[in-house]
């Protein structure tokens, strides 16, 4: 049977889930983000499955991907969605009678998400679920959580004082890229991105959405092709990134320090090298961080709750310092209120002249923002 734990962020849902699972223990647990999905005891996908496989089949198998083909792959090299699917596959091969999932399904693309929910709803085991995009799933019992002190986050106030600005147009021409030993991700892909516009990248897992972000930010270098800003050649893989403010899918993949103060200071120093960037002052950023829920620059980033870290990851995008914003799955772990507020903030940034590109599997969220869809598939961007 299905037990759904509902409530706004910081209402104690994760704690309630853990309490429930302790009562029902042993239970299979899939934590938030990819890193919470797998056991941490395996160096290959085959080993991960071997650890959980029970001698006799107890559940129907859940295998939306061909895991046999992945057998020798290392688990951290799978995408976030693939790791969550692998975890569910391992559960289906195990003899656990209970599974608890803390927002992990939010990372799945729509097709796999539906498959996963259908599997969990079937009823021959207990499934306890937290998911910000569901509202009392039919056939599931619901436990409501409420209240509790929140890391109050006011996105409207955060974007209120932003000034209009110009952002360069981005022209990508004949971009080709492939990972060493892998297939082509991009083959002579060309696309233009206009400022004051919002774009959504859509496409199946592994198509290259995050790869495109990395190419634009200079993390990866293309095999061939050019990127131009207002017609001028731009090669961030050589010159460094001074155009894009990136909010990573997992907020822990973007900090540059142990405390917020360290992170802010290092980034400010780095951006001060570029004349064309007006670096926000330390006090401004501290005030912005307070509006995002973190009151002190001395706050140790990794001691914050995960949901609060995710909100803080919007700091530089919302600061207005950089002309283009890239948001990778910005709504993971955020409740309905926050998703609506984020949609408003994105629209405001675009209205002020920023260019915004975001990736999300949440069609409902995307529908609330005026945007152009860019399909990333088969080596091209259309």
């Amino acid at each position, binding site marked *: 049977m299905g037990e759904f734990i509902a409530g706004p962020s910081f209402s104690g849902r994760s704690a309630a889930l853990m309490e429930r699972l302790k009562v029902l223990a042993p239970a299979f647990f899939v934590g938030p983000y990819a890193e919470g999905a797998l056991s941490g005891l395996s160096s290959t996908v085959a080993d991960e499955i071997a650890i959980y496989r029970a001698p006799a089949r107890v559940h129907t198998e859940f295998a939306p991907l061909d895991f046999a083909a992945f057998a020798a792959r290392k688990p951290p090299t799978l995408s976030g969605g693939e790791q969550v699917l692998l975890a569910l596959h391992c559960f289906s091969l195990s003899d656990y009678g209970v599974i608890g999932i803390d927002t992990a399904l939010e990372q799945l693309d729509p097709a796999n998400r539906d498959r996963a929910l259908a599997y969990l709803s079937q009823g021959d085991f207990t499934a306890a679920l937290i998911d910000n995009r569901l509202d009392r799933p039919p056939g599931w019992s619901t436990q409501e959580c409420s209240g509790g002190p929140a890391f109050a986050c006011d996105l409207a106030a955060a974007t209120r004082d932003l000034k209009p600005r110009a952002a360069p147009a981005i022209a990508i021409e004949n971009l080709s890229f492939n990972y060493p030993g892998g297939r082509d991700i991009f083959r002579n892909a060309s696309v233009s991105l206009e400022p004051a516009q919002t774009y959504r990248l859509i496409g199946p897992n592994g198509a290259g959405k995050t790869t495109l972000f990395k190419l634009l930010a200079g993390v990866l270098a293309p095999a061939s092709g050019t990127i131009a800003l207002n017609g001028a050649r731009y090669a961030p893989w050589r010159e460094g990134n001074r155009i894009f403010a990136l909010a990573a899918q997992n907020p822990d993949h973007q900090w540059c320090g*142990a405390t917020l103060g360290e992170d802010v200071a290092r980034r400010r120093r780095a951006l001060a090298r570029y004349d064309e960037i007006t670096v926000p002052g330390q006090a401004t950023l501290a005030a912005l961080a307070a509006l995002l829920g973190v009151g002190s620059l*001395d706050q*140790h980033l*990794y*001691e914050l709750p995960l949901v609060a870290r995710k909100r803080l990851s919007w700091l530089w995008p919302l600061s207005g310092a950089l002309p283009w914003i890239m948001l990778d799955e910005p709504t993971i772990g955020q409740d309905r209120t926050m998703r609506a507020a984020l949609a408003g903030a994105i629209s405001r940034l675009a209205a002020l002249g920023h260019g915004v590109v975001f990736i999300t599997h949440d069609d409902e969220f995307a529908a609330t923002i005026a945007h152009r869809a860019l399909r990333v598939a088969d080596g091209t961007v259309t």
Partner: protein
Amino acid sequence: MFTTPRLVAIALCAALNFAIGNVVYLVKLPIYLDSIGTILCALLIFPDRIAAICCAFIAGLIGVILSGLVINPFLPWFTFSVLAIALVSALLTARATDTFRAQPLVPLPFFGKVILYGVITGIVSAVVSAPVVVYLFGGVTGSGSAFLVAFFLKTGEQLLNAAVLAGLTTEPIDKTLQVLVAALLYRATPREFIAMLRPAQPAT
């Protein structure tokens, strides 16, 4: 002694030794930086001294065995050096944990202790490593200290003495750098992780 969080700490520090040591080895810098995890493990598990020695040593040992398989097959021969570093780290360097974690960072005591304990670690490591350097490598390990060995040999020193003297010149610098990195990593480690490493409380 070996609670689950401590096993995790050992494995993390062993993996850290492996990762950092191999990068540095491949870049062919005249330093090793392959014991940062060993020192860090001792800092994390302090003040339980016996556990700190054991866990730090095991972390170092696993690190050199795995590095030996993949990158540098001569590392496992320095097991006694690993033990020596674990002992110094748990018994001496770990006394500075409060200084290392003090907010804000007070430069004089912090760097003073880093240098003091780094030099001691380096001296001990040089003395313990010298016999292995001599009998396995003939005194020349491929790092810059080889020229120092040559210098001392030229002046008529016996090989073992030359290796010790050369080691005493380079190891304190390398180990001070390692104590510095370990101290800074210890400083940045979330409180929750350090709290997990306390000895298991007896069930009441």
